[in-house]
């Protein structure tokens, strides 16, 4: 665990065309903080990688980065961060670290695990964070970065962990995604605020929008809740994750779906992952994503 390693990248331009990948870009967002967005993103990424897919996660929450903790990365091992790319100091793929180790189930040999998981972290340096807060960054460059990353790492899925709330950079990230995944709690403020974000995403031309409800307390009629959210938002709810003390307890100490594979929270998130996979299949117009082993380079 925690074997985040800097990668050596091949020069793909001299090689034969890469096998077709899904190349789906998914923005994951919540109106407010504390909804469990980063945690759900990390766990979703692990579930997708376990399907033998190549998955990338970008922490665009530059103002308050944190997803690297869930992947048990040592920030001092990062050679580069997303900030370096945005400031022209490196290519985006130079900032990617291979965190496949956290996705591989116990007892599965490295050579038998076809999935890949990469993380592009944000800088934890206070000066870097201050600079972003002061100067902002070119969101257009971010869009190019997503595209470059999908190509160079041959990704099936790129999950973008966004900053809560609505700002220019976040809206642009959402606008260039294939899927906009909104996470909220069953709470009046989340419900109202999310509706505005959702409408803005529609105006920006985002076609696919889906919702996951998190921290749903016991005692709530899940079907009734789902029906209510779907009728108010007119988008499908693909997961109702229970409020769980186990999730909070593990918190940043690891990836929940790995530690608790049979937990109701895990099972519900697996349902959401299946919905994402079905979407990829539909869009790619192909048969379901092939299970392991994946095709290699020819």
């Amino acid at each position, binding site marked *: 665990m925690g074997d985040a390693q800097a990668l050596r990248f091949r020069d793909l331009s001299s090689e034969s065309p890469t096998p077709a990948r899904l190349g789906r*870009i998914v923005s994951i967002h919540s109106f407010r903080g504390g909804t469990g967005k980063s945690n759900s993103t990390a766990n979703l990424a692990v579930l997708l990688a376990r399907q033998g897919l190549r998955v990338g996660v970008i922490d665009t929450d530059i103002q308050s980065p944190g997803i690297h903790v869930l992947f048990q990365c040592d920030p001092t091992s990062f050679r580069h961060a997303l900030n370096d790319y945005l400031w022209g100091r490196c290519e985006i793929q130079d900032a990617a670290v291979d965190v496949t180790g956290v996705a591989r189930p116990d007892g599965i040999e490295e050579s038998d695990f076809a999935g890949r998981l990469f993380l592009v972290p944000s800088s934890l340096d206070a000066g870097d964070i201050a600079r972003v807060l002061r100067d902002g960054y070119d*969101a*257009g460059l971010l*869009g*190019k970065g*997503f*595209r470059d990353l999908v*190509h160079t790492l041959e990704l099936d899925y790129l999950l973008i962990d966004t900053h809560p709330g*609505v700002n*220019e950079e976040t*809206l*642009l990230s959402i*606008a*260039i995604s294939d899927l906009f995944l909104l996470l909220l709690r*069953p*709470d*009046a403020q989340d*419900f*109202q605020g999310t*509706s*505005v974000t959702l*409408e*803005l995403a529609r*105006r*920006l*031309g985002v076609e696919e929008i889906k919702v996951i409800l998190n*921290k749903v*307390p*016991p*005692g*709530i*009629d899940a079907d*009734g*809740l789902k029906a*209510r*959210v779907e009728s*108010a938002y007119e988008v499908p709810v693909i997961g109702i994750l*229970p*409020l*769980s*003390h*186990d*999730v*909070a307890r593990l918190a940043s100490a690891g990836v929940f779906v790995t530690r608790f594979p049979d*937990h*109701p929270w895990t099972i519900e998130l697996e349902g959401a992952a299946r919905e994402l996979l079905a979407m990829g299949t539909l869009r790619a117009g192909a048969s379901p994503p092939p299970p392991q082993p994946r095709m290699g380079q020819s």
Partner: protein
Amino acid sequence: MDETTTHRLELLDADRHHALQAWDLDSGREVSLGRARTNDIVLASPLVSRQHARLRFVESCWVIEAQSELGVWWRGGLRSRVALEEGVAFALGEHGPSLRLAKVAPLQVFDTESTMRFRPENLGILVLDSVRRDREVAEIVESDFFRHLEQRASRLRGKTRGDDGAEPA
């Protein structure tokens, strides 16, 4: 505990800091907890047994007695019977929802925590104020900021979905 003190049972949020829901307890009355709808306190969690536990006021204490083999998780161990202490969290089963006994102040003052309390029967609060939403959306989309953003988004999207950065025709 003072005989005149009244208590309530609180269902805790995952971070254990605030109560999502609370039930007032009456020392003259036994309370049943479980997943079945027939219980006094219904916790619709798959981690809770149908008849999970009973809560009774014995002498000067609220005592919880497990009726389920999943037991009561208290101070790091599974117990079948626990004399509860105010403010100390316990769980129904090792992985089940956490609860806490709390003293009810003689005069209930609304605090910031109570606004976070969630009552399932109040799912009605999840009603969308669509007039307010439309007003807020209109304010944003009619701004120059958003019009500029729309143009950039459509340009960027063309690039992202086009063939490796080629400008759309």
